[in-house]
């Protein structure tokens, strides 16, 4: 296929998504018209050394190639005054697909990761129930379970984009507090039904077994819907950093309410108004009233490549790719712009997307060496469209910096440098 046959989908180099496979793109940086390994490179291919001797034996527990060790979560320096507080961000710019490896799933802790012996861990359900109950881990493993693919996003993700000036950041540093996984566990309704919900109960109050005994209040109607007691993540027991031996998982909602190391569920008439649902994770509006219990995460997308702090080394065809998600449904459409939002083209979305899960999108783009601003705009199954940053900040103000879901702009200059801008 020649360049002349490529159907333009939008201005400044965006190519119709149907060319994705035809171009044979293998990832960012692939150039359709040149070859670095061609005859002019002046060498012959030889059988490599690893093809001439037996490799390592199978192992009990796998590890990645040492050549990928640079793929790491990013976390701030430990604060000695706040032991165990902080977060680690997924390397979105290096990942593909819509499932985050457990070792690279983002984390947010409020008092560190407890080292819990599952044989000593208890889950108590009490308060406004017919019969208070205590469960142990072994018995919970015997319950019927469900497996679902969901995203998880910290409500503080992308918060710096509320700021007056664009931060010099990467997809990881700006947006890395979102990840996707398959979660397996027990529908919480199963356990609440076993305890017998009192008709007067309106809220569950979930508390973790970490040093902060982190707690959140969740409306009972949501808790009885699609909330699960998650015991497995991507097929293996939930890792300590994700709440081993068990966590609450509230699909589509701000990550903080999916309480890790879950040890207590108390049913009450009113919410507790925990510190993390009053002082934190609340959104002060321009009229100085503050919204509390803002649970579903907004319709959102971010281009993960090319993305901030990358450099395009040469002109040619690139695969623009990223992730999209919505706390209120599935992703139905992702559009991409290369001219700062003036013209848009539909990106290809992987077909296995589901409700409240990450969807991977891709579209080919020809960079001709000029200035460009790449943006992506998601639409979910409820018709919610991702807003521009300007409209979001105008509507919400920036007193609070939670629940940012505006459009990200990556500028490419003539040198190929990619940077976060407000456009």
């Amino acid at each position: 296929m020649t360049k002349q046959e490529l159907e333009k989908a939008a201005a400044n180099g965006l190519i119709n998504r149907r060319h994705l496979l035809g171009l044979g793109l293998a990832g960012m940086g692939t150039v359709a018209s040149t070859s670095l390994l061609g005859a002019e490179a002046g060498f012959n291919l030889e059988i490599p050394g690893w093809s001439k001797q037996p490799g390592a034996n199978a192992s009990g527990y796998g590890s990645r190639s040492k050549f990928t060790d640079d793929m790491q979560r990013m976390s701030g320096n430990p604060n000695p005054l706040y032991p165990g507080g902080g977060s680690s961000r997924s390397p979105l710019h290096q990942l593909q697909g819509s499932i985050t490896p457990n070792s690279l799933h983002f984390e947010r802790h409020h008092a560190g990761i407890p080292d819990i012996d599952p044989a000593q861990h208890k889950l108590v359900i009490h308060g406004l129930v017919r019969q208070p109950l205590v469960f142990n881990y072994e018995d919970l493993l015997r319950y019927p379970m469900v497996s679902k693919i969901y995203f998880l996003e910290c409500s503080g993700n992308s918060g710096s984009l509320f700021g007056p000036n664009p931060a010099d950041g990467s997809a990881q540093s700006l947006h890395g507090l979102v990840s996707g996984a398959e979660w397996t566990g027990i529908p919480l309704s199963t356990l609440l039904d076993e305890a017998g919900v009192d008709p007067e109960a309106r809220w569950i109050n979930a508390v973790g077994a970490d040093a902060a005994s982190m707690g959140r209040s969740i409306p009972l109607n949501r808790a009885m819907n699609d909330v699960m007691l998650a015991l497995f993540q991507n097929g293996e027991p939930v890792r300590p950093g994700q709440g081993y031996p068990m966590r609450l998982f509230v699909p589509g909602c701000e990550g903080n309410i999916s309480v890790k190391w879950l040890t207590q569920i108390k049913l009450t008439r009113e919410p507790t108004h925990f510190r993390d649902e009053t002082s934190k994770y609340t959104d002060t509006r321009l009229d100085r009233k503050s919204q509390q219990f803002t649970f579903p995460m907004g319709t959102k997308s971010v281009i993960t490549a090319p993305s901030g702090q990358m450099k395009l080394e040469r002109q040619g065809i690139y695969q623009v790719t990223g992730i999209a998600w919505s706390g209120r449904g599935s992703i139905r459409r992702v559009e991409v712009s290369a001219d700062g939002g003036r013209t848009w083209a539909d990106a290809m979305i992987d077909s296995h997307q589901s409700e409240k899960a990450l969807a991977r999108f891709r579209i080919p783009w020809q960079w001709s060496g000029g200035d460009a601003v790449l943006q992506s705009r998601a639409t979910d199954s409820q018709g919610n469209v991702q807003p521009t940053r300007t409209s979001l900040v105008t509507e919400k103000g920036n007193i609070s910096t939670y629940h940012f879901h505006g459009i990200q702009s990556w500028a490419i200059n003539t040198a190929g440098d990619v940077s976060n801008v407000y456009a």
Partner: protein
Amino acid sequence: MFTLKKILSAAAVSASLTIGLSAVVQAQSLGTPINESQLQGFDLIAQPDGSGYPRGSGTAVQGKAIFERRCVTCHGMTGEGTSTNTRLVGGDMQSEERPIRTVGSYWPHASTLFDYVQRAMPADAPKSLTSDEVYQVIAYVLHLNGIIEDSLVLNKETLMQVEMPNKDGFIDSSQAP
């Protein structure tokens, strides 16, 4: 760890698959009944309606000593904090500038102060304060914000009556679509 062994052993004893299947069905009710009285030291939830507060009491005068011993590294000698995140005192939600949000200016319920200090503070030794000490130290934080007198004996009853300046400042979005 895995239930199959239990199911198989049940089936082997009875030589009947029916027993094995019934064991699976029974596995759906494996919670052990307990009484609320067994949770007295475990349930730390303290709500605005006064539920969940332990016995005990204290004044700001008593709390000052604890605060200066256990809290000032992060929160400063008079609650001014070492960062916006650790500032406990001051601020005005109606100020024209970007409002500084603290316990005094932002938190809508005094119960949250008790609940949070009891479960999570001090950050380097959570749950190391006695109930009396929790009442004392939160009395001091409330006093630093000018919300209570330093002589007020804070206990379950008096804490319920404390009105926070921003008590009407929040909108419940929990049932928003």
